[in-house]
């Protein structure tokens, strides 16, 4: 017995030694800063392009085939890493020392991840002059707050879309007109919303109109009191939910199985469901939240020339149109309109590409919450970490 004790004591000492060794080495590791001057022209392609993307975003096997054409034109062979959520995307970019780990060149970040990538120094500024189509963009997407900080561009806008209310036409009558039904008891147990921290903004947007006393000016810039009120609403909404959906396919399955009758989603899900002959329609309630994706350049991109070539290529009107139709999203380049109509008649209209500027003011595009409130000229807003904690509380 004594001998065993001794051995156990030895094991504890050994373990402590290992722990200590790790503590010392880890504490001495420091993140290195990445400085860079903007390139004045695009050099020769490196023959390879590694991207973190929404599944199929560079159109691997899609009917558009625009990636294949890019590869033959530039000799940049695309290697893809799919990410299912914005959190996955951020984690991938931030891993292995950050900045894409010296492995990734581009990331197709949505607005809820892009500012975080910028402030975490995982992406670096780009020379927007090297992307000629940028001049043609809709004004809202030229220097939007989610990818441009103090006039410095950290990537190029590519596509956008509104968050939509999807509903089962057989079960939900009359058809919804706004976001109210997902907060009402009428369809309790048949509602779904995304499992995404940025969903807090949707609830804040609802409160903006419902409770003007709270004084919410921007659903992404909430004070502590405003965030608390929003969390309260979300906690009240939770018993009405069938589930939170994690991946777009989860929501599609739930609608198909009849478990879910209405929920927040994207046009992508609606297109997939309608293609599968499900009795499903969607509306774009106004005002609503929306997302806008940006191709961002990794701070440690090993193939920057190919990356610039891709950003230049993917924003041209023809390619924009192809990508929009494949994914059910809307180009940032309005010249894509005629090519969209050529692929699918009336699609430019259906995807709201030819709306007036006033329309875009009603869509509150995703952006990462930061302490600086634009509307209040102070640092009293809740940051993303607070939102993350709040979201965990809602779900707990």
């Amino acid at each position, binding site marked *: 017995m004594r001998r065993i004790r001794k051995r156990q004591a030895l094991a504890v000492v*050994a*373990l402590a030694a*290992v*722990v200590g060794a*790790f*503590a010392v080495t*880890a*504490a001495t590791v420091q*993140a290195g800063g990445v400085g860079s001057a903007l390139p004045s022209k695009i050099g020769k392609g490196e023959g390879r392009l590694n991207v973190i993307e929404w599944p199929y975003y560079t159109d691997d096997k899609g009917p558009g085939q625009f990636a294949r054409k890019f590869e033959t034109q530039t000799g940049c062979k695309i290697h893809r890493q799919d990410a299912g*959520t914005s*959190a*996955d995307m*951020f*984690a991938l970019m*931030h891993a292995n020392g*950050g900045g894409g780990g010296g492995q990734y060149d581009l990331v197709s970040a949505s607005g809820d991840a892009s500012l*975080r990538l910028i*402030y*975490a*120094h995982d992406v670096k500024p780009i020379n927007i002059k090297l992307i000629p189509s940028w001049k043609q963009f809709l004004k809202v997407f030229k220097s939007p707050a989610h990818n441009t900080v103090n006039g410095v561009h950290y990537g190029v806008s590519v596509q956008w879309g509104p968050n939509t209310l999807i509903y089962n036409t057989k079960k939900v009558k009359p058809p919804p007109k706004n976001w109210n039904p997902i907060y009402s008891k009428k369809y309790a*147990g048949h509602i779904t919303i995304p499992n995404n921290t940025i969903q807090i903004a949707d609830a804040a947007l609802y409160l903006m109109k419902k409770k003007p006393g709270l004084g919410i000016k921007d659903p992404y810039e909430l004070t502590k009191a405003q965030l608390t009120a929003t969390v309260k609403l979300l906690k009240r909404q*939770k*018993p009405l*939910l*069938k*589930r*939170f959906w*994690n991946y777009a396919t*989860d929501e599609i*399955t*739930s609608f198909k*199985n*009849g*478990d879910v009758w209405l929920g927040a989603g994207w046009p992508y899900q609606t297109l997939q469901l309608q293609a599968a002959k499900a009795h499903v329609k969607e509306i774009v309630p106004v005002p609503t939240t929306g997302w806008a994706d940006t191709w961002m350049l990794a701070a440690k991109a090993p193939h920057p020339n190919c990356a610039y070539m891709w950003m230049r290529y993917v924003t041209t009107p023809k390619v924009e149109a192809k990508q929009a139709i494949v994914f059910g999203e809307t180009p940032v380049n309005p010249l894509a309109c005629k090519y969209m109509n050529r692929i699918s008649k009336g699609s430019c209209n259906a995807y709201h590409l030819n709306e007036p500027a006033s329309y875009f003011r009603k869509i509150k595009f995703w952006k990462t919450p*930061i*302490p600086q409130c634009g509307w209040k000229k102070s640092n009293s807003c809740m*940051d*993303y*970490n*607070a939102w*993350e*904690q709040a979201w*965990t*509380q809602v*779900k*707990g």
Partner: protein
Amino acid sequence: MAVDAGAFEAGSPGRRARLRLSGLLWRRPWLKALSLLTLPVAAFLLVYIGALAALFVSSFWTVNSFTATIQHTWSLANYRLIFSSAQPYLHIAALTLEIAAAVTVTDAVLAFPLAYFMARIASRRTRAIVFVMVLLPLWSSYLVRIYAWQTILAHDGAINWGLRGLGLPDQNLAYTNWAMWIVFSYVWLPFMVLPVYAALDRIPDSYLEASADLGARGIKTLRSVILPLALPGLVAGSIFTFSLTLGDYITPLLVGGPSSQFIGNVVYSFIGEANIPFAAAFASIPLLIMGVYLVIARRLGAFEAV
């Protein structure tokens, strides 16, 4: 035989060296043990213990909320957050623990009669067939089986289809804690059946005969002879079912409801937010629980059964 006295004397230099080595190893047994164990022990220390140590150490760090860089200063902030009653984390840990316990009990109750049948009643042929049937689900991917359950439990799925056929009302099982309990109990059942079978198979027939000779009836024999001898097997199986449920995050994600977060889901989402320190702190909780569980299991003789 190749080895004979002549060859021994006239052996090539290579052969002589080999013989010298084997002689050395025979004379110094610790050298043999060392050469056998160095590689696995080093791998164990580095990969396994090392990873756990790194996890434990990083759980005392914090992360800068905005730049997502890790601050290498020691603090208990993560643990304070976990144990704060205003936060949902203890509740999440409790739910994980409850479901893991419920799954373990369910699997034990289901596995015992099946294992008993296999070990003591079935003919050799039937036993082989039942064995294959128990193991068959393990041949397909775990993910595929969970997705299969998603469609079985769905509103328009097999269960409600059957209920409607019988004229019974629909059950809303999909995306609830009940769904998690059912799916977990299903996927981990083989891991309970096998150790219980092994324990029951080792009970000598003479014990049961002796019990009968002493006048004990079936129930009494079961309670006083079979169950105590099968207990180590049950405990060994429960280590699998309990720890596998405790560490899972896919089943809650795919069949769980709006309030079905597991420890694993929280860990996963915090890694997604690049808050590794908090994820590490919360991941230490199941480690602690399993440590206590294993100590108890050892007392109950689980490690002699497998």
